[in-house]
C-alpha cells in the first residue's frame, strides 16, 4: 500500500502538470457552426420538481390553475434548493410522475403544464442599475429566478454565490471549457451572446466580492474566444484565457489548476483556496435574473450524434420532451435505425436514458443519439495492467486497483485507493484497451457506500425506537401498578371507613337504647 501510494503520487505529480486526461475526437462541428434554432413552445411541458441538487421544490399551484409565463409553479424547500417557474402561459393539468433523465428509468414527481399558445409573461420586476444592489440582493434575485448551474451539475447558483461571499473568495473562475465531446451549447452562447455573458460575470463579481474573473475557454473554440475577448476588452476584471483542449478540462479542480496554478486539496472545496467556479451559461442566466427579473425557463441544448439528421443547437423551454426536440431538429436518420444509445448531457458524464419521452431539465446540455460505432460497446476483457487508466486519470488515482477491489466488494479498500476523489469523468474507461467499464464500477461503489451509510443511520434510528418502546412499556407497567396500588388503598380505606361507620351505627342504637333506658 505504501509503495502504491508513493507510486500514485509520483505519477500524480508528474501528470497533474502535463498529461492527464484524454483527447477524444470532439465531434463538435458541424453542430457548433450551425446557427441556433429556437423551438416553438410544445403543447405540453413536463416539469420535474427536482431539476437541481438539493431538496425538491414544493408545488404552489393547483391542478386546473391558469398561470402566466414566468409565474412560480413550485417554491424552494430548505437551504439548498431552487424554485420552478412556468416556461410558458397555460394551465396546470396534472401534478404526477414523469421519467427522470436518469439511467435507472425511474420517475420523478413533476408538474404538467398545457400551453395556451399565448406565451404571455407575468409581471417582471426589472432592475435598471443592478450594480447599486447589495450582493445579498443579487443573491436573492438569483435565488428567486431558480437559476442553477447550467453546466450539468445543476447546483443552485444563489447558494454558491452566497457561500463565496461568506468565504471571501478572490477569484471567480468562469467555465467556458465545454470539454465534453459533442456538446457545443456553451460555445454557441459565447459566440452569440458574449456581451450578456460578460455582463453576467461582472454581476457575479459584484455578488461575490471576487476581484477578478478568469474565463477559461478551450482553444478548439477560436470563434468563442475572439467573441469573448472583444466583449471583455473594456473590463480589466474579466480576463479571457484560452486553455488547451483536453478532457476533462471543464472539471472544477482541473480548470482551477490550469488557470490559477493552485491545486484544490483532495478533500477540500475550491472556496478553500479562494476560488469559485461558474459556467458561462449560468452567467447569462444570472444576468437575465438580475437585470430583467426573468426566471430560468429555457436553455440551449445541443442535439448531436451520428443518428441525428441535422445536428445543431436548439433553444428549448425547460420541460420539453427530448422526443419533440429531436423531431424539431430534423429527426433521426432512417427513423432511428442503428440507434445504439440515447444520452442526455455529454457522452462522458451524461445520463443514458431509456427512451426519448424524457423532459429537458435545467441541467440538460445535450441530447445525443449515438450509433454503434460511437458507443464501442465491446465485451470487456480481463485487465492487462497496462497502466493506461492511471496515466489518464486527472485525479491521480489508480482505476485498475480500485475496480479490482470493487469487483470483490472490498469497498473499504477501494476508498483507501481514493475512490471518494473519483469525479466519474470516464477518462479511465475511455482509454482502457480491455474496454472494462471502469466508471460504472466507481459509480456503483459510491452508490453502494451511500446505501450502507443510510442503512447504518437507519439501524441507529431503529435502536432508538426499540429503546423508546421499552421505556414506554415500562412506564405503562409502572403506571398500571401504581394505579392498582392506589385503587387497592382506596378500596381498603373505603372498607375501613365502612367498617367504622357500621361499628358506629351498631353502637349508636345501643347507646340510644341505653339513653332511652336511662330516661
Amino acid at each position: 500500500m505504501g509503495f502504491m501510494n508513493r507510486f500514485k503520487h509520483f505519477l500524480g505529480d508528474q501528470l497533474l502538470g502535463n498529461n492527464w486526461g484524454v483527447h477524444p475526437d470532439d465531434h463538435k462541428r458541424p453542430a457548433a457552426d450551425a446557427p441556433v434554432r429556437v423551438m416553438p413552445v410544445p403543447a405540453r411541458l413536463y416539469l420535474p420538481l427536482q431539476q437541481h441538487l438539493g431538496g425538491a421544490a414544493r408545488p404552489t399551484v393547483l391542478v386546473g390553475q391558469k398561470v402566466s409565463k414566468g409565474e412560480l409553479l413550485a417554491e424552494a424547500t430548505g437551504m439548498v434548493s431552487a424554485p420552478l417557474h412556468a416556461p410558458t402561459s397555460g394551465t396546470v393539468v396534472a401534478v404526477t410522475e414523469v421519467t427522470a433523465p436518469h439511467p435507472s428509468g425511474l420517475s420523478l414527481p413533476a408538474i404538467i403544464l398545457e400551453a395556451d399558445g399565448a406565451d404571455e409573461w407575468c409581471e417582471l420586476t426589472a432592475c435598471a442599475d443592478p450594480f447599486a444592489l447589495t450582493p445579498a440582493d443579487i443573491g436573492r434575485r438569483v435565488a428567486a429566478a431558480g437559476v442553477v448551474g447550467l453546466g450539468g451539475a445543476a447546483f443552485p447558483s444563489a447558494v454558491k454565490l452566497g457561500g463565496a461571499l461568506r468565504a471571501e473568495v478572490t477569484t471567480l473562475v468562469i467555465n467556458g471549457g465545454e470539454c465534453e465531446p459533442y456538446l457545443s451549447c456553451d460555445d454557441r452562447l459565447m459566440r452569440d451572446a458574449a456581451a450578456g455573458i460578460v455582463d453576467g460575470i461582472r454581476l457575479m463579481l459584484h455578488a461575490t466580492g471576487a476581484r477578478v474573473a478568469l474565463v477559461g475557454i478551450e482553444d478548439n473554440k477560436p470563434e468563442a474566444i475572439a467573441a469573448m475577448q472583444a466583449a471583455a476588452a473594456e473590463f480589466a476584471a474579466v480576463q479571457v484565457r484560452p486553455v488547451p483542449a483536453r478532457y476533462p478540462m471543464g472539471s472544477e479542480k482541473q480548470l482551477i489548476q490550469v488557470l490559477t496554478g493552485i491545486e484544490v486539496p483532495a478533500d477540500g472545496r475550491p472556496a478553500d483556496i479562494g476560488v469559485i467556479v461558474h459556467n458561462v451559461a449560468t452567467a447569462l442566466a444570472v444576468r437575465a435574473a438580475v437585470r430583467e427579473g426573468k426566471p430560468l425557463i429555457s436553455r440551449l441544448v445541443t442535439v448531436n450524434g451520428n443518428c441525428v439528421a441535422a445536428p445543431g443547437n436548439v433553444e428549448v423551454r425547460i420541460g420539453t420532451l427530448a422526443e419533440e426536440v429531436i423531431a424539431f431538429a430534423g429527426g433521426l436518420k432512417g427513423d432511428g435505425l442503428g440507434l445504439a444509445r440515447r444520452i442526455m448531457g455529454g457522452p462522458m458524464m451524461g445520463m443514458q436514458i431509456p427512451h426519448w419521452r424524457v423532459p429537458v431539465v435545467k441541467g440538460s446540455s445535450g441530447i445525443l443519439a449515438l450509433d454503434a460505432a460511437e458507443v464501442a460497446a465491446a465485451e470487456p476483457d480481463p485487465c492487462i495492467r497496462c497502466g493506461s487508466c492511471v496515466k489518464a486519470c486527472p485525479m491521480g488515482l489508480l482505476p485498475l486497483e480500485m475496480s479490482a477491489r470493487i469487483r470483490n466488494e472490498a469497498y473499504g479498500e477501494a476508498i483507501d485507493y481514493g475512490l471518494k476523489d473519483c469525479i466519474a469523468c470516464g477518462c479511465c474507461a475511455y482509454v482502457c484497451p480491455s474496454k472494462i467499464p471502469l466508471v460504472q464500477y466507481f459509480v456503483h461503489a459510491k452508490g453502494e457506500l451511500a446505501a450502507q451509510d443510510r442503512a447504518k443511520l437507519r439501524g441507529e434510528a431503529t435502536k432508538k425506537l426499540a429503546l423508546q418502546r421499552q421505556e414506554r412499556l415500562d412506564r405503562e407497567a409502572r403506571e398500571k401498578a401504581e394505579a392498582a396500588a392506589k385503587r387497592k388503598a382506596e378500596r381498603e380505606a373505603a372498607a375501613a371507613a365502612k367498617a367504622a361507620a357500621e361499628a358506629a351505627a351498631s353502637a349508636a342504637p345501643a347507646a340510644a337504647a341505653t339513653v332511652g333506658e336511662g330516661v
Partner: protein
Amino acid sequence: MIAAVLSLTLLGAALGIILGIANKFLQVEGNPVVDELIAMMPGSNCGQCGFPGCSGAATAIVDGSAPPTCCPPGGKALAVAIAAKLGLAVDLSAIADDGPKIAVIAEELCIGCCRCSKVCPTDAILGAAKQIHNVFREACTGCSSCIEKCPTEALVMRPVPVTLQHWVMPKPLAA
C-alpha cells in the same frame, strides 16, 4: 457485653471486605464479544432468529450454535460484518436478500383490533381500537413480527419502492 458487640462488628467488617474483594475479582463478566455483537444487531428484539431478543442471538452466534446469517432484518450487511468480526466464513447464499421490505396494511381489511401495534418492536404501527391502523414507513424495520398477528390478513410485506435517491448503479458483470 462490649466483647460481644466488638466481636460481631469485627466479624461483620471482615466478612464485608471479603465479599467486596470477591465481587471485584470473581465477577461474572458479560462476554465483551457478545456485547459488541449486540451493538451491531438491529436491536428491535423481533425474535425472527428464534432467540429471545438480539442478545440471545448474539450469544448463540458467539458460542457457535447459530450461524452469523441468522438475523433476517440485518441481512447480508450484518452477516458480513459479524463474520468479519468473529473471523468466520459465511455462506451468503443462505440469505435471500431480495431487498428491504416493509409492512403495509390494506385499509379496507383492517378491523382495528390493535394486535399488530402491540407486537411492533419499534412502535411503527399507529392506530386505536376500532380505527384503521397504519404503518410508518420510516419506522418499520421489516421484521414481519406483525404479519402473523393480523386476523384478517390485512398486513403484508412489500418491497420498499426504489426511488431516485436510493437507486444504486448495478455492478458491471465481471469480465
